[in-house]
C-alpha cells in the first residue's frame, strides 16, 4: 500500500512503500538461470567438470555430509515451523512476486529433499510434510532459485530462530558444484583469483601501470605526489581491496581516497600483486576449501611483504569474510602488530585518523551532492567495525558526515540491520541475471526515490564493489544517472586537504576540522 503523506510540500501525496508486498506471481522467475560453468571452470576448483552419472546419489550423500559438518545447516533444516515471518523480507520476492523467492520457500526447495531422504516423516509420509524425490526437475529448480539469493541475510534478522537462508543457499550451491553443475560467473572468477590473484585477471604489469596512472592523476589534481605502492617490502600496512577498485567506476575514485588518507596519515603501505583481491567468491559457492585457499593468499602476501597490519578496502562480502572468517581460515595472525584490529577496515582506519584530528577537510567540496548511504548487506549483517556492536553502521556515517554537509537517511526499515541488498550480491552480478538484478534492486530504489522526493537526495554512497557496480548499472532504469552511486572514500577524496595541496579557488576556503559535529 502506498502511504499517504499529509505534510508533503505540495499538499498530500502518496509515497510508494519500498517494502510493499506484491501479489504472488507463481513461477514467474522460473526461467531465470545463470550460464553454467564450463568443465574447465569446475575442475580448477576441484569439482567434476560435468554432471555426474550418479549425481542423485552423490547429491543426497552430500546433504548428509554437510549436515554433519555444519550445525547451522542441520538445525535450519529441522527448525523451521513455516510461521511465515520471513515471507515478505527478501528483496527478490518483493521485486518479483515469485513465491519461491520467499526465504522459507527457497529453503524448502532443499528441505523437501532433505526430508525425503533423512527424516522419518519424509521417508514414510512424504505427502504429509511436503517431501519430494531429488529429480532432474528439482535440480534445475535449485539451479534457478539458489541463484536468485544474494545471501544477504535479511531473512535471518527476522526469523524467530535465526534461520539464515544464506547458509542453505551456499550449501545448495556446494551440492550442485559437487555433482558437476557450477555457475560460470562464480567458478570462472574463483579460478582466476586462485591462478592470478584477483577476480579480474589483472597481471602485475597491468596493475603497476594502472596505479602509476592514478598517481599521475592525483598529482595533476592536487599538486601533491601521493604514492600507490605495489609489493613494497617492509611497508607497515598491506591494503587488500577488491580488484574492481583498480578498474571500475566509481570504485577507482574510492581507491584514490584510500591513497590520500594513507598519505596524509603518514603511514607506509602497499598493495600486493599476489593477493590483489579482497572479494572472496568461495563464500558465494559455500566452499570452505576454496574460500580458505583464497584467504591463504592474503596471509602469504602479508608474510612475504613483512607488513605489520592488514587493511581491507570497501567491499561487502570481502569484509564479511575478512572480519568474521579470516582468523578462522588463515589465522592465527600472530606475526602482525597486535595493537591494531586484524584485519582492519579502511573506514575504521580513516575514522580513527579523523578522530585524532590528523585529517583536514573542505566539506564544501561535496556541496554539489545531496547524499544518502546504502548499508551493504554483508557489512551490516555479517561483520562489524570498531569496538561496539553496530559500529558498522555508525563509522561509515561518521566519516560521511565529516566530509559532507548534506546527508539524509533512508526509511529506517531499509537501513542498518534491516538494509536491503543492492540486488547483485552473492554471485548474481552477472549480465545473464539482469532481470532478477533489476527486480531485486527495486525495493532499495523505491527507498531512494522517497528521500529524493522528501529531501532532494541526488546521490547514494556505498562501501561495496558489488553494490557500486550493480547500482551504476540499474540506477538508470529508476531515473537516476549512472554516476549517482559513489564510493564513501570518493567523498573523502573530494574533501580532503593534503599538506601542500594546491587549491583552485582563492581565497582559501574556511577549513572545518573533521572531528566537529557533522550535519544530518
Amino acid at each position, binding site marked *: 500500500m502506498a502511504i499517504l503523506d499529509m505534510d508533503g510540500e505540495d499538499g498530500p501525496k502518496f509515497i510508494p512503500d519500498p517494502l510493499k508486498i506484491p501479489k504472488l506471481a507463481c513461477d514467474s522467475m522460473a526461467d531465470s538461470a545463470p550460464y553454467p560453468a564450463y568443465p574447465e571452470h569446475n575442475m580448477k576448483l576441484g569439482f567434476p567438470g560435468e554432471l555426474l552419472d550418479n549425481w542423485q546419489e552423490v547429491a543426497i550423500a552430500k546433504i548428509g555430509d554437510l549436515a554433519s559438518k555444519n550445525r547451522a545447516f542441520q538445525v535450519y533444516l529441522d527448525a*523451521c515451523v513455516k510461521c511465515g515471518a520471513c515471507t515478505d523480507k527478501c528483496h527478490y520476492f518483493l521485486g518479483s512476486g515469485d513465491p519461491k523467492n520467499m526465504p522459507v520457500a527457497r529453503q524448502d526447495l532443499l528441505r523437501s529433499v532433505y526430508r525425503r531422504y533423512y527424516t522419518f516423516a519424509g521417508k514414510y509420509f512424504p505427502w504429509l510434510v511436503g517431501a519430494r524425490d531429488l529429480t532432474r526437475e528439482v535440480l534445475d529448480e535449485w539451479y534457478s532459485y539458489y541463484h536468485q539469493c544474494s545471501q544477504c541475510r535479511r531473512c535471518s534478522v527476522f526469523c524467530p530462530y535465526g534461520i539464515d537462508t544464506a547458509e542453505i543457499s551456499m550449501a545448495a550451491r556446494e551440492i550442485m558444484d559437487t555433482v558437476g553443475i557450477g555457475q560460470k560467473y562464480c567458478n570462472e572468477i574463483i579460478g582466476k583469483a586462485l591462478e592470478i590473484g584477483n577476480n579480474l585477471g589483472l597481471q602485475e604489469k597491468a596493475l603497476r601501470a594502472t596505479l602509476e596512472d592514478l598517481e599521475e592523476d592525483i598529482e595533476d589534481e592536487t599538486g601533491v605526489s601521493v604514492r600507490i605502492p605495489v609489493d613494497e617490502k617492509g611497508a607497515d600496512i598491506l591494503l587488500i581491496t577488491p580488484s574492481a577498485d583498480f578498474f571500475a567506476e566509481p570504485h577507482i575514485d574510492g581507491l584514490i581516497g584510500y591513497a590520500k588518507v594513507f598519505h596524509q596519515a603518514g603511514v607506509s603501505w602497499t598493495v600486493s600483486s599476489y593477493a590483489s583481491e579482497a572479494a572472496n567468491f568461495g563464500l558465494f559457492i559455500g566452499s570452505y576449501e576454496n574460500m580458505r585457499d583464497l584467504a591463504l593468499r592474503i596471509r602469504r602476501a602479508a608474510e612475504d611483504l613483512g607488513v605489520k597490519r592488514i587493511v581491507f578496502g570497501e567491499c561487502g562480502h570481502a569484509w564479511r569474510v575478512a572480519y568474521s572468517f579470516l582468523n578462522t581460515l588463515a589465522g592465527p595472525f600472530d606475526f602482525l602488530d597486535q595493537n591494531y584490529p586484524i584485519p582492519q577496515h579502511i573506514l575504521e582506519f580513516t575514522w580513527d585518523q579523523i578522530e585524532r584530528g590528523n585529517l583536514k577537510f573542505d566539506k564544501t567540496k561535496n556541496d554539489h551532492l545531496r547524499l544518502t548511504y546504502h548499508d551493504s548487506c554483508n557489512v551490516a549483517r555479517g561483520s562489524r567495525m570498531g569496538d561496539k556492536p553496530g559500529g558498522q553502521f555508525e563509522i561509515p556515517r561518521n566519516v560521511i558526515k565529516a566530509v559532507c554537509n548534506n546527508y539524509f537517511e533512508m526509511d529506517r526499515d531499509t537501513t542498518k540491520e534491516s538494509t536491503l541488498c543492492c540486488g547483485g550480491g552473492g554471485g548474481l552480478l552477472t549480465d545473464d541475471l539482469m532481470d532478477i538484478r533489476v527486480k531485486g534492486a527495486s525495493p532499495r530504489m523505491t527507498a531512494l526515490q522517497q528521500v529524493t522526493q522528501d529531501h532532494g537526495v541526488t546521490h547514494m554512497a556505498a562501501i561495496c564493489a558489488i553494490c557500486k557496480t550493480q547500482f551504476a548499472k540499474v540506477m538508470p532504469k529508476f531515473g537516476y544517472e549512472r554516476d549517482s552511486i559513489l564510493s564513501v572514500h570518493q567523498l573523502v577524496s573530494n574533501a580532503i586537504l593534503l599538506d601542500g595541496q594546491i587549491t583552485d579557488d582563492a581565497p582559501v576556503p574556511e577549513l572545518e576540522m573533521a572531528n566537529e559535529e557533522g550535519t544530518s
Partner: protein
Amino acid sequence: MSTLYALLFYFATIMLVVGLGLRIAKYARTPAPLKIPTMPAPTTRSGVFWRMSREVLVFESLFKSNKWIWVFGYMFHVGLALVLLRHFRYFIEPIWFWVNWVQPFGIYASFALLIGLLGLLVRRIVVERIRYISSPSDYLMLLLLIGIALSGMNMKFLAPTDIVAVKVFFLGLLRLQINELPTSASLLVHLGLVATLMIIFPISKLLHGPGIFFSPTRYQVDNSREKRHLAPWAAELEK
C-alpha cells in the same frame, strides 16, 4: 483401556525423552565451521545470554518481523507454558506451592492458548503467502494442538472428569503401577492427542524448541577478530 493408555504413555515418554535427547546430542556434536552471528551481535557470552533470553521469552525477532504472528504465537506459547505448569498438580503430591499459585492463571491461559492457535490457523488459511508454504502437516499440527486444548477445556468447564482418579492414574504410572483411568471421552481424546504430540515431537518441526539454542546466528559471540574459531574437521585441513 487403562493398560492401553498406560503403555501408550510409557511409549510416548520414551520416544520424547530418547528422541529429543538423540537430536540434541546430534546438534551439540555437529560443529559450526564459521562464525555467523547475525550482526549486530553481542561481543560477550553474557550479552549472548541476554539476546537468547529475549528471543525465548519475548520472541524479539518475530516481534520485529510481523506483529500478527507475534501476537498469536505469543498468546499460544505463554498460554501453553502456564497450562503446562498448572498440569504439574496431576503428577506431584504434595503440590508445590508455586503450582497452586499458577493455578488460576492456568485456567485463563487456556483461552489465550486457544485464541492463539485459532489465529495462527486462520492466518495459515487466509494469508496467501503462508498458505503457499504450508504442508498438510502444518495444518494437522495446529489441529492437534487445538484438539488438545478443546478436550482439556471441555473437561475443565463443561463436562468435568474424575480428576482425582486421573491423578491417581498418573502417580501410579510414576511408580510403575497401573491404576484405573476414568473413561470420559474428553479425557481419552485429550490424553491420546497429548501422547501423539509427545511421540512426534522429536521428528517434527517442534524441534524449533531445542533448535533455537543451537542456532549459530543467535548463540554465537561476535569476537572473531579476537578469538580464533576452528572446527575440528577444518583443523584437519591445516595439517
